[in-house]
């Protein structure tokens, strides 16, 4: 029952949405796809902003089917639009309170002080007029405004895409904190792989109005049969724990089931959970344990799958330990020289690790 089950079809001039997926109603589910893939339309259908044919159940509650259509304002959801869309005729405070006032007292689960604190909103409230806020600040208010309605589910439509890099960096920690502290499932529309890899737990992949894959983030991103494997920034996501800081060399060791990685020194206390991303292009393969290499992260791995990636490249999927998957992109020539094949034990050399927090 703790699921989101959606099935929609919608015909629009020149575009057809025919999407169905189910995702766990916990954590962050990314609706990922290129522009025009229908991810925003799908999100709008879920919100009831588009009247599509289909059905929708959220946590066992029926929101839409053949005979039922809950209008948007009757769906207990929060929606964060691409642009903050604050009401210009209302103060920052009145914007925040707009949805809160319309939420029955018995349904108010999210304490306003908490949201204000988490999103650092009290300084923004003091400034009064939304026009005086920066883009990132406005988006924080918009997120707060949605959260104050104590939504059963939070829908976010590329909430960062209208922001510049600085504002993005400023707001991402707030999003991560929300996901950690609030027990509200999030559907997050994005076309930016780095955002998805950083925030999502579950991935729904869209192409031309259809859902082509849906599953756990790290499993889905590791699939070589999906378009995501062809991306220049294709890679694997690793959930790791901060294990140890090396003060002398200014390094931090991250442990994950099946291995560990050394990365530049982090501020996190030992024991903290972090997410790291290892891009396929940053992983090379050796058939023997390399000696005398400058690369310090070398992991024993077993080849699970090899797939052609264009005329000159192949993608290789490897397993580290029992559960961690790693991708590598190498030339066909190297594959043939090393005579790589499925089931072979190899060594993965990780040139660089992108830390997500």
């Amino acid at each position, binding site marked *: 029952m703790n699921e989101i089950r959606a099935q929609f079809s919608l015909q629009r001039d020149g575009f057809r949405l025919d999407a169905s997926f189910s995702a766990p109603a916990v954590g962050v589910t990314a609706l990922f796809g290129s522009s025009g893939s229908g991810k925003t339309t799908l999100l709008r259908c879920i*919100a*009831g*902003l588009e009247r599509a044919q289909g059905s929708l159940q959220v946590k066992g509650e029926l929101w839409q089917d053949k005979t039922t259509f809950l*209008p*948007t*304002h009757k769906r207990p*959801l*929060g*929606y964060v*639009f691409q*642009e903050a*869309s604050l*009401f*210009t*005729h209302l103060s920052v405070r009145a914007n925040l309170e*707009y*949805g809160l006032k*319309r*939420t029955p007292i018995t349904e108010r689960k999210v304490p306003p002080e908490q949201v204000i604190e988490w999103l650092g909103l009290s300084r923004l409230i003091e400034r009064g007029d939304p026009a005086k806020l920066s883009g990132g600040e406005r988006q924080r208010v918009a997120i707060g*405004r*949605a959260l104050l*309605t104590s939504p059963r589910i939070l*829908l976010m439509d590329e909430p960062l895409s209208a922001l510049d890099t600085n504002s993005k960096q400023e707001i991402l920690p707030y999003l991560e904190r929300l996901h950690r502290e609030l027990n509200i499932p999030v559907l997050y529309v994005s076309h930016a792989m780095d955002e998805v890899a950083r925030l999502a737990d579950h991935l729904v992949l869209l192409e031309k109005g259809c859902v082509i894959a849906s599953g756990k983030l790290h499993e889905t991103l590791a699939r070589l049969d999906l378009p995501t494997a062809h991306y220049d920034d294709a890679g694997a996501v690793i959930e790791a724990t901060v294990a140890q800081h090396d003060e002398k060399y200014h390094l931090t060791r991250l442990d994950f089931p099946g291995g560990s990685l050394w990365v530049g020194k982090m501020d996190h206390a030992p024991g903290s959970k972090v997410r790291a991303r290892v891009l396929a292009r940053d992983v090379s393969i050796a058939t023997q344990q390399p000696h005398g290499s400058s690369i310090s992260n070398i992991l024993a791995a077993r080849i699970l799958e090899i797939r052609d990636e264009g005329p000159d490249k192949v993608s290789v999927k490897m397993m580290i330990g029992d559960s961690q998957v790693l991708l590598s992109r190498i030339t066909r020539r190297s594959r043939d020289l090393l005579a790589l094949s499925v089931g072979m034990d190899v060594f993965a050399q990780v040139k660089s690790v992108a830390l997500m927090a």
Partner: protein
Amino acid sequence: MPQLAPDDLQAVWLTLKLASVTTILLLAVATPLAWWLAMSRQWYKGIVSALVALPLVIPPTVLGFYLLLLMGPHGVVGDLTTALNLGRLPFTFAGLVIGSVLFSMPFAVQPIQNAFEAIGRRPLEVAATLRAGAWDRFFSVALPLARPGFLTAMILAFAHTVGEFGVVLMLGGNIPGETRVLSVAIYNHVEAMEYASAHLLAGGMVLFSFLVLLSLYLAGGKLVKV
């Protein structure tokens, strides 16, 4: 300084009353109409828009004449009002109000419609995701955001009604205190070669109209598109 004759004073008072009643009624009628025109994607929206704009191009006397026919004993509206025991509308204040509402319709609908269109759908969608129902959205978001448009519509409708002549002339019958408004009074003074009284009233009207338009441009210049 010449004094206003009691008749003329009555005409001024009647004109203000007509303009006020017309403006209030117009807001009540034009707001839903403008809303529909701004939001609708129906094919017949163009037809409705054209109908609303028609008084801009029809000579007022022609509009007045058709209303006279329609509201008369051989007209559809006349039949209706008679059947409802309301009597007939020509030569009554109510008839003038109806004529004025139709005549000034585009001046009220278009600024409001423009204002609604300028808001777009997004703020209303945002409000819907924040638990606001349709009426709530309209009153808490659409109306306040469209306020400049309403201001323009009110001022234009009022001023246009004050200056209206052709429709009133055709429909009114020049009854003091009932249908003899300022513009007709001025016309009659001119026709009767009573130029002093005509100047007094006409001058006052020019001044009034100027002040109205001035306030419109000063107060709303940035916000209001006429």
